[in-house]
């Protein structure tokens, strides 16, 4: 990897505070747009090394483009409880909760995490801008809403060595920090918050900091992480990891109810496999009445993991005189799923999992065909021709290492 590249192209996109470093490290100069920021697709010419950094070493990702909002004030807990589907009153200071939020018809608008920074202060992260929705629903409540998207920079350090690296850098030990909890610490004289969260389903952390400290933190991590195999990682590697972890992505696996042109594009949390995150015992929240009705009715769709069966897949290619063709990157083209001659669902993202050696995908399937073990047919293209090949509904996450949740102390 060359460190001498100079990024000279002009861009209208926003540049993250890490850009001074990432632009020079990005050997491929492949970039994607993420929330108006320029974000690295991969740093090397192929993402494989970055992917394996996530699973076997430590991957460093610039996640500053995430939308972040600070909700602060006496009514902040009451407000968030009304906004999101999870029960925020049991979220302790220093705890983080993943949750979707819905419109009043119970259809998902976005999903993200809620961090309880103090008794009356929260940070909520989201894929898309949500300031208007948050402010609209916060009218009349005793709280302030602040867009924190630019005022806080963030890095994800993901992979089995991530804790060891942070223990080298941070003044406090990370050994006892539990999954979906966070702590404040310092890197030398730089204050940071570290949450044990991520989008990889692996042991991993997200580091939240003042943008003015961004470069120093980046340099420190790369320096101390060198012997642990720290690797700047782009979105392509992340995409495979998040599919293995069974984590959904807005605009890929579902459409925000705010943008859906037609009703059928909208999904309730139940239809996205997020029923566990809907807390019906909570007094009232946006969409509750509609979701209660849906529970009675039974959700129409389920969101499941499927595994495309290897032997049959191989057979299709063999017939064409080819070795099995597998996607080298994660794909996001909607792909039909059949039961007999009837289409009963569609896969929205899939990938060959290098670590599992399985061809996996995330799919919307009609509830009656969505039970674990259910056998469906997956549409496959072999040398320009469409084929159907068996796929089985399996449990997600596909990859769920024990280290994701375990603590050392």
């Amino acid at each position, binding site marked *: 990897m060359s460190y001498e590249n100079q990024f000279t192209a002009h861009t209208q996109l926003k540049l993250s505070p890490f850009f001074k470093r990432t632009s020079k490290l990005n050997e491929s100069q492949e970039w994607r747009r993420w929330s108006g920021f320029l974000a690295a697709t991969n740093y090397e010419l192929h993402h494989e090394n970055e992917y394996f950094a996530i699973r076997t070493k430590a991957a460093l990702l610039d996640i500053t483009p995430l939308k972040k909002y600070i909700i602060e004030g006496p*009514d902040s807990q009451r*407000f968030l409880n009304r906004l999101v589907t999870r029960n925020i009153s049991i979220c302790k200071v220093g705890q983080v909760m993943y949750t979707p939020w819905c419109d*009043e018809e119970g259809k998902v608008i976005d999903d993200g995490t809620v961090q309880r920074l103090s008794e009356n202060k929260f940070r909520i992260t989201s894929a898309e801008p949500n300031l208007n929705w948050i402010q609209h629903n916060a009218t*009349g*409540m005793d709280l302030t809403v602040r867009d924190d998207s630019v005022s806080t920079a963030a890095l994800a350090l993901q992979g089995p060595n991530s804790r060891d690296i942070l223990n080298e850098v941070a003044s406090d030990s990370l050994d006892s920090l539990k999954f979906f909890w966070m702590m404040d610490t310092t890197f030398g004289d730089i204050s940071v918050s570290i949450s044990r969260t991520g989008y990889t389903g692996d042991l991993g952390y997200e580091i939240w900091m003042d943008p003015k400290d961004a470069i120093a933190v980046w340099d420190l991590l790369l320096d101390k992480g060198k012997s642990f195999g720290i690797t700047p990682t782009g979105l392509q590697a992340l995409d495979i990891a998040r599919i293995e972890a069974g984590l959904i992505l807005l605009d890929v696996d579902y459409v925000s109810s705010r943008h859906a042109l037609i009703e059928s594009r909208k999904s309730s949390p139940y239809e996205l496999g997020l029923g566990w995150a809907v807390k019906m015992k909570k007094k*009232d929240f946006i969409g509750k*009445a509609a979701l209660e009705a849906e529970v009675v009715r039974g959700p129409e769709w389920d969101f499941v993991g499927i595994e495309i069966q290897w032997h049959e897949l191989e057979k299709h290619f063999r017939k064409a005189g080819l070795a099995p063709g597998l996607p080298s990157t994660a794909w996001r083209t909607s792909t039909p799923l059949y039961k007999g001659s009837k289409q009963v669902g569609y896969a929205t993202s899939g990938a060959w999992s290098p670590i599992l050696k399985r061809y996996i995908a995330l799919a919307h399937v009609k509830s009656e065909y969505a039970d674990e073990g259910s056998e469906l047919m997956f549409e496959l293209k072999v040398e320009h021709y469409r084929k159907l090949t068996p796929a089985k509904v399996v449990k997600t996450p596909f990859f769920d290492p024990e280290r994701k949740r375990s603590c050392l102390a």
Partner: protein
Amino acid sequence: MNRFDVIVVGGGINSLITASLLGKAGKKVVVLEARDQVGGLASTTEFAPGFRCNIINDTLKWIDPRVMKDLNLEANGLALIQPEVVQVTLSENGEHISFNRDPRLTAASIANFSQKDAKSWPAFIEYIEKLAQFLERLYQLTPPELPNIGLSEILPMRLMLGPAFKHGTRGLVDLMRVAPMMMPELVDEWFENELVRSAISMAGINHLSFGPFAAGTGYNLLHQHVHGKGVFHNTQFVKGGTGELAQVLASVAGSNNVEIRTGSKVKSIDVENGRCNGISLTGGESIQADRIVSGLDPKNTFMNLVGTSNLNPNFHTQLNNIRYRGSTARVHFALNKLPEINGILQDQMKTVFSVGPSIEYQERASDSVKYGTIAENPTIEFTIPSLINHEFAPGGKHVLSATVQYAPYHLRDQVWSSKLNEQLKNNVVRVLDNYIPDFSSLIETTSVLSPKDLENEFGLTEGNLNHGEMTLDQFFFMRPTMSTAQYKSPIENLYLCGPGTHPGGGLHGTNGFNSAREILKG
């Protein structure tokens, strides 16, 4: 005991009517009024020692005949005074047009300005009366819940068949043409003289934040003439002052076993899981009831009393989008003697005078709303209520009350203050000086109510006297919002009865009557 069948929040005209009708139907009802007297926009008070005024409305344009009959208002002491001259439109050069109950007399007055216009007059008022008859029927209806319209919504619509048969499709087409019109277009089709044109236009801009060139002023004009029985600029005074209307309604309510509590300010309508069963007063007291009816405007009812955290996001958006934008102010003058009005005899003064001598003058006055300033030359409607009710002023002295447009609630780079109230008063005095010689020298005391004052004193959002602008996008099934147009609301057990509902503002009581009917239905 603090347990009622129905709590009515607010003690205005509609609240009292709803309460009475519910009480009459055997419900145990309490009315909670924040001020120390009931009546709301129909209130009379002493504004200076010895001088009384009708705080907001000097006249009733029309009153729902169903209310008159069902509550037997006449027998219960409501005395309406119907002047022969209903309005006098003043011109800057001392001439005027008298609008009379008898259209021939009006035509004769118009003939001084234009023979042609005088000839058109009978046909014009017949035309307006025809269109108003459609609204009369429409106003009796509860608007349908769209888009889920069913037989139960369509059946009551047969009320509309009466005028439709009487006036044919042509009548309906005319209504659809005139309602969205602007004033200059309407008068272009009938009249040539500018004073005549402007006199008609004044009805179209009544209490609006727009000028006569705004689409939909046609509808506002028709709204003023419902139940007008063919009298253009129909006007009625109440013997004893407009506040008497409220007093009569309160006594009728009392005889229907309605309990009225004044000085009881509701702090919140208490909602749990989308349902309300009680209210809390600012004093800390809670009162329970099966149903709550609010005569307050939608913003006060839902945003302030129910609380936005209990509203669905969509409904919340709809509420945010209701336009209030009060632009009407009231100025009361205590005068040391009866003013002289140029060209008007002393016995012609028991009426309403209007100052807005050309459509352009009116439009320019309305421009101030756009620019967030007080109109330099406002349009003014004034009366001398002390001529109608002598007890309004000490012997020989008089009161002149003016309704002034435009004085917008939202000002640019400034907020309402006593200094601006003074400026508003000065503008009114300067304009009236052109019509009343030496007017300023007659003034003993003045009381100014800006839209901000109206908001503070009467809880009117942005000082809007109609609880929401009277425009076509806030009409019928869209008033106050699509989801609350049936006098009920997305909050279970919470109903509306104020002017924010169909058919809008004015001291006519139709809202209260329709609301009571819906509440008794279920």
